[in-house]
């Protein structure tokens, strides 16, 4: 179990997260939804220590880490146990798809080159990118890049996979292939937190949905509870706006 407690983060006077606590069971797929600027991305970035929160702790395998302290060893420990998938893929542009996936295996897990290569090829196979192993990011479409980025994160066998709007920077027709990969990964028992605006996808893939508003968790439950029977006024308002497009304009 992974536990996040009392996480707060403010940029100058703008409070983005306020005393957020969250318990994540092994194998949970948690969908995080909410309006823009409510700290969804910041939540993930704080967990991964790309952002240093003002306060908060993370407990992983019984080891409790103060996220505010900027301790190098603790930071590496957290990062080595969590994987991050970014909105803009962030592949290493001077490395091939294969080298991108191998990088962490070589430098962090200290595998021998040949072992790393085999492991990386397996990861690429999982996301259906084996044929593109020798290609550089510039040669790949957004969807393909994101699939490689997912393989890169998964290669390190993270205890917790953080997905920060993985399909937001993609052309609509490429969204499907990435969602398919995420669905497959979720089915393999990975614990993940998924921040996304793809409501239908969040609803179908997660077994728990969190609604964040102004830095607070205002709704927390199964997808059925949150989407069909939201308790909070803000959630209802948000969801009605979200689904306005999928509803017909006129009902005759």
């Amino acid at each position, binding site marked *: 179990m992974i536990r996040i407690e009392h996480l707060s983060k403010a940029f100058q006077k703008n409070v983005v997260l306020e005393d957020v606590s969250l318990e994540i069971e092994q194998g949970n797929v948690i969908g995080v939804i909410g309006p823009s600027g409510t700290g969804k991305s910041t939540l993930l970035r704080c967990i991964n220590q790309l952002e240093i929160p003002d306060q908060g702790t993370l407990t992983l395998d019984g080891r409790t880490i103060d996220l505010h302290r900027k301790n190098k060893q603790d930071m590496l420990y957290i990062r080595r146990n969590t994987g*991050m998938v*970014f909105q803009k893929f962030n592949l290493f542009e001077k490395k091939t798809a294969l080298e991108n996936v191998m990088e962490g295996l070589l*430098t962090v897990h200290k595998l021998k080159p040949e072992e790393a290569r085999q492991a990386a090829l397996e990861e690429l196979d999982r996301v259906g990118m084996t*044929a593109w192993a020798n290609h550089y990011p510039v040669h790949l479409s957004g969807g393909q890049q994101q699939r490689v980025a997912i393989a890169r994160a998964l290669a390190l066998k993270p205890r917790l996979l953080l997905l920060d709007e993985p399909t937001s920077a993609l052309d609509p027709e490429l969204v499907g292939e990435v969602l398919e990969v995420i669905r497959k990964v979720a089915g393999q028992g990975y614990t993940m937190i998924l921040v996304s605006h793809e409501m239908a996808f969040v609803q179908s893939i997660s077994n728990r949905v969190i609604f964040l508003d102004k830095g607070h968790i205002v709704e927390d439950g199964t997808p059925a509870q949150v989407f069909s029977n939201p308790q909070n006024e803000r959630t209802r308002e948000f969801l009605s706006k979200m689904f306005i497009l999928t509803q017909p304009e006129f009902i005759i």
Partner: protein
Amino acid sequence: MKLFDFGLVFSQIPKLLEYLPVTLELALVSMLAGTLLGLLLAIMRMKKVRVLSQIAGFYISLVRGTPILVQLYIAYFGIPMLIKWINLKTGSNYVPANIPGFVYAVTALAINQSAFDSEIIRASLQSVDRGQIEAASSIGMTYFQTLRRIILPEALTVALPGLGNSFIGVIKGTSLAFTCAVVEITARGQILAGRNYRYFEVYVSLAIIYWVITIIIEQLIRLFERKTRIPDQVEQYQPENLKTGEAAV
């Protein structure tokens, strides 16, 4: 006596080239030391540690703001004085006269180089996309692993034209090393001309040599740029052992 001895311009080139190794050695050592020091300065400035970045900023401003000729003289006269002062303070007995002029020249050229290179390097380091650095951090790479494996290879592509320029600059800078009593090709030329008063001819010969060296370096840089460029097209990966025959999508 001819007004301009055209034949001499070419015939004396071999005599000048005897000292080419000195010129190249001066340039290479200064460039190498200057680039490493420049990298350190660039990181000092970027890391935004208050005192370090101020020291780096002051150093760069001072070195860029003084002529290389003055710096060479300062090194030539200043380092022996520094050694004498150290002797005085610690009772040691180093003899400044034993230090070859090469050391003074390299010190001055490397310091000059470092100030210019650090700005080229800083710009190139800052051009690396932050997202990739975050990605490297997120998989648990340390800062030095990220620097060595992700940032530097990408920054190098950006820095290469600038560093190439700077290297060409230092090659020509070595022509001032005579101020530190180093005999390289220019000093050699002056000695030759002192014998037959054919100063104009010798400087034309030198101009030709420097230009040819520069052309060679330009070509080498171009070659290196081509080597490090991401290829336009890549062949699809073919697994060595098609285990299941399952086609990858």
